[in-house]
């Protein structure tokens, strides 16, 4: 899973680094030819910086995303669901590992990235700052958040940085199983008893605003994407990806007889575009900046895990030692 490429670094023009024009032209020509940029190739400083930021945030989203779903592994009803959810969340942690490796090829060590996550300097997908209150929430997350992530990741996998694209290709394959699992779980609830149905409907209503937030602010207020588009760091606008998601999944949601909490949500047959009520973007920015219902909890859990595991990591840095009798 992953929350879109919306948290770009707001570097001011004064900070803009002037790259060697000849090298820059060669770099851009390479991207135009559809070739991948590899770790040892020359790249503009901004390109490196934005990619580190983006891949790192993606990695953080995977490991923080494991927390709300992880709490339901121990409560999953029955062997089939329990085994599937364990495997799914394990995949997400594995994606984190893959992505940290990809980001490390750009020169930032995993420890430093994790430290930036813990200090709040580096962000992760906003959706994980919301709680998974019931089993219905885990079903909605596994289906729709993962579906949204796939829209985003399939797009990004066509990008220009080789190691990130290769990681994304593998991630997308695994995510497609998550989506099937999530869809299956939602179908069982939506076609089950009134209690089960209510459970999934309430979860869907709760998760709709974060899902609409998932791809980031509308294009008209989203900044500095032009250069990133040219460099194939960003490949589709937030609104394009949101439209693609709505087009693929709203009909499937309605097919199950579930409703969405937006009376204005409809497809305009003339334009082919979905119309909807803009979600509360002030809330989106408040949550990103730490005021969501679960920001503090997520970081506290991650901090505790880091703290509790420190002795283990230290022990790994030491070679296995044998006691030797001092010579005296």
């Amino acid at each position, binding site marked *: 899973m992953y929350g879109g490429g919306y948290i770009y670094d707001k570097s001011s023009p004064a900070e803009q680094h002037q790259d060697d024009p000849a090298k820059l032209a060669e770099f851009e020509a390479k991207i135009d030819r559809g070739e991948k940029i590899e770790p040892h190739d020359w790249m503009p400083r901004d390109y490196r910086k934005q990619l580190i930021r983006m891949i790192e945030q993606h990695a953080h989203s995977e490991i923080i995303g494991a927390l709300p779903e992880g709490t339901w592994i121990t409560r999953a009803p029955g062997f089939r669901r329990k085994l599937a959810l364990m495997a799914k*969340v*394990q995949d997400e942690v594995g994606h984190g590992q893959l992505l940290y490796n990809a980001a490390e090829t750009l020169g930032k060590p995993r420890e430093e990235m994790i430290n930036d996550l813990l200090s709040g300097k580096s962000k992760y997908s906003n959706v994980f700052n919301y709680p998974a209150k019931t089993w219905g929430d885990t079903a909605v997350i596994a289906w729709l958040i993962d579906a949204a992530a796939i829209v985003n990741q399939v797009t990004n996998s066509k990008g220009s940085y080789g190691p990130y694209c290769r990681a994304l290709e593998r991630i997308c394959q695994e995510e497609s199983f998550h989506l099937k699992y999530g869809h299956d779980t939602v179908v069982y609830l939506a076609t089950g008893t009134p209690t089960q149905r209510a459970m999934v409907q309430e979860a869907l209503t709760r998760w709709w605003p974060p899902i609409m937030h998932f791809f980031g602010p509308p294009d008209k207020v989203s900044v500095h994407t032009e250069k990133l588009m040219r460099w194939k760091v960003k490949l589709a606008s937030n609104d394009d990806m949101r439209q693609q998601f709505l087009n693929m999944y709203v009909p499937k949601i309605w097919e199950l007889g579930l409703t969405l909490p937006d009376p204005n949500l409809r497809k305009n047959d003339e334009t082919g575009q979905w119309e909807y009520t803009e979600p509360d973007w002030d809330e989106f920015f408040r949550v990103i900046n730490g005021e969501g219902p679960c920001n503090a909890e997520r970081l506290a859990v991650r901090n505790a895990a880091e703290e509790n595991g420190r002795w*283990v990591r230290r022990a790994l840095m*030491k070679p296995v030692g044998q006691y030797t009798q001092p010579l005296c």
Partner: protein
Amino acid sequence: MEALSSLHKEAIREFLYKMADDQLILGHRNSEWTGLGPLLEEDIAFSSMAQDKLGHALALYTILHEHLGEKDPDTIAFTRNERELRCCHLVEYPIGGYDFSLTRHFLFDTAEHLRFEMLAGSAFEPLAQVARKIKGEIKYHVLHAQTWMKQLGSATEESKARMQSALNETMPLALGIFEASPFEAELAEHNIFAGEHELRNRWLEVIAPTVADAGLVLPDIDALTPAYGGRQGYHTEYLQPLLTEMTEVFRIDPTVEW
């Protein structure tokens, strides 16, 4: 397979339940490391082992269902009450620190590997078949445990001290794995299982060299009081909260598909 006598059946039923319950509860505990491991690689490793354990529990409950007339696996795993479970105390303890979880994993999986090796030749064919599959999987769990025991037992002062304390704390609990069943003679006589005592002896032979290689000291086994009771349905205070959590959703309606 020839018809089972009722005593014979009762012996196998008791035997399968205790093994399956151990796997279910420890699988549950191992899964609690998801997202919280000391490093991502260990999150992933503990999750893999948890999935294997759940799979083993399911395979054993399936034998109970198909050959011994018990209810379906979900029902027997998710609706029995605490007193009906036959797991040992070792698997019930919370995950604690990584030192405790790793030591438990080492001691338990070594015993399980040997148990399923013994059972691969069991006269009760459905169990023998499952055992042949399970022992192959647990081999990797044991290798994982041994690697980490050796690394942590001899790296830093802190890791050595932690691992020794964990071993001291865990050994009496681990001895509870081998609590004798009332049907030991019955199982041995019918070549189903050579017995907990035999397993315990083999286990001690295997763990001793790893503990020594790790630079740790095995506590004096004869001076320890094994944590018995689990096999008779007497559990630690940790089991009931685990069951309450595990069945939270299933209990909303145990008769429907989730």
